[in-house]
């Protein structure tokens, strides 16, 4: 176990964040808190992707005309970053939609607690 913590600390962090997000979504009854959990979960995945791109002693993958190009190994992998940029957009729009929904729910039921909403729906 110690090895893992030592050599792959980023994976451990990702797992912890992921599980934490899910835990919040399950356990918290407040609708906004659930969204927080959801966002934590999404973020953990971004973290995972970004860590995939990391190389030791590498630089950012930008080739300026003024700088001579290095060997490909010297750059960090740019693709995950690009992907995560998109994923962030997606996540943000999801969050936006969900918050709008929560607002509508609040207008409808005057509460954000799951129990109470379910109670009122009966």
């Amino acid at each position, binding site marked *: 176990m110690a090895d893992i913590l030592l050599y792959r600390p980023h994976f451990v962090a990702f797992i912890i964040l992921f599980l934490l997000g899910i835990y919040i979504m399950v356990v918290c009854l407040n609708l906004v808190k659930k969204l927080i959990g959801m966002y934590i979960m999404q973020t953990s995945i971004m973290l995972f992707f970004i860590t995939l791109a990391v190389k030791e002693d590498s630089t950012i993958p930008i080739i300026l005309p003024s700088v001579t190009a290095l060997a490909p190994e010297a750059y960090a992998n740019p693709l995950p970053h690009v992907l995560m940029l998109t994923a962030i957009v*997606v996540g943000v729009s999801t969050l936006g939609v969900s918050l709008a929904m929560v607002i509508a729910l609040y207008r409808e039921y005057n509460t954000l607690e799951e129990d109470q909403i379910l109670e009122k729906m009966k």
Partner: protein
Amino acid sequence: MTSSLPGFLFAIPFFAAIVIPVVGFTNQKLCRPIALGALVFLSIVSVIGLSEAISHGPLSHEFGGWAPPIGIEWVIDGLSGLLMVAISVVSLIALVHAGPLVEKELSGRVIPFYSLSLLLIAALGGMVLAGDLFNLFVFLEIGSLASYVLVGVAGGRSLLSAYRYLILGTIGASLYLLGVGYFYAETGTLNMADMALRLPDVLDSRAVLTGLIFIVLGLSIKMGLFPLHGWLPDAYTYAPDSCTPLLASVVTKVPLYAFVRIAFWVFGMATVTTQIPILVVLGWVGAVAAIVGAYRAIWQENFKRMLAYSSVSSMGLIMLGFSLGTETGFAGGLFYLLADTLMKAALFGVAGAASYQYGASTVTDLARLRRNMPWVLAALVISALSMVGIPPTAGFFGKWHLVVGALEAEKYFAVVAILVTSMLTALYFFRMFQRVWAEESLPLVEPHVLETPFPIKMSLGVLTFWIIALGLGSDLVMGLIFESVIPKGF
């Protein structure tokens, strides 16, 4: 021209979705013609795309001048062409049907309805066409966002189910993305065709296994595969009647398509049956899903909820078909997918019509269809019979191919599951008929009952026609599937 076809397929509904709010701002009445026009166009183009793909092999379109595997690639081959045709045609019919309903129940939200529907269709098209895994994710999320909103657009009770759908859908999408990350970590590519070449070398890695499991889990949530179907019944039940035909018919089918694409094209048949025997597991899951979904449907009083559980059951059957591991099974699954798309659109359309005219939402209320709505009733009868699997409808041939596939694969549990499901399906649909023609005299009808609006009648008629036509043309469709859809490796 032809090489940019995939682009067109996405662009048509997408631009329509953008144009609608702009135009609708000035004249709300234009939304509908624009949307329908775009979809007619889309249908025509997708049919052309399918025929091109069949006659000349897959068409691919690269974006931004980058060649795959680095660039983004959109592909239209037999499978995606078929799906594309199904999506465009069924959504056209669904939107035709939605016309009167939208005006009645979403009178203030006509613009968002059409705009979002088209966005949803565009996203679904994108998923079908996408040639790489991450693109698929993006369209998955766009489509999901649109459908979350469509579910909740009427407000009230539907909001909560939309919220639930959203939470669970996001978890699914995240899991999918995670799985894609694992694949990427192992193979260093996201393009499906490229990945298919690289995967065999790294199949021993547990990362691939883990990634596959995540992807399957994520897509299972999206497609409402039992036991991860939790969002589905509520969402279908409370979503506005104008949206359900569209949602129920295609939204869950496309994630399933994604799964099929990954399992059979990226991994290949041999891998998913032997090295990573995920199909065996999914076969059992599909069997249980089919039975449990049908069983739960029996006890539903709300008609749309019954249909929702019926969707769960169908999804199980389709999954069962794909997981049989034989050509016939695969083709049967695909055929049943197409059939179910039509049948669910028709059934939810009937539900919409019933609620439009009589406010009928329960199975018992359907008895009112007996008065004054013979055509809707006929559509209900035929599509229900197709669900049950009475020849010569599409549903029958779907089950037919599934059973043949299961027998050829010598998977007898699958045979039993299909038969039990059929029996349970018969139970709840015939129970429905029993209520429709119950001995009790009809409840007093509201004094002024409208004539069923023509768009509803027409769209139901067209769907019913297609249900029968697909059944009778089963041979052609199956021939097409065998010829140009079945992946290698069987």
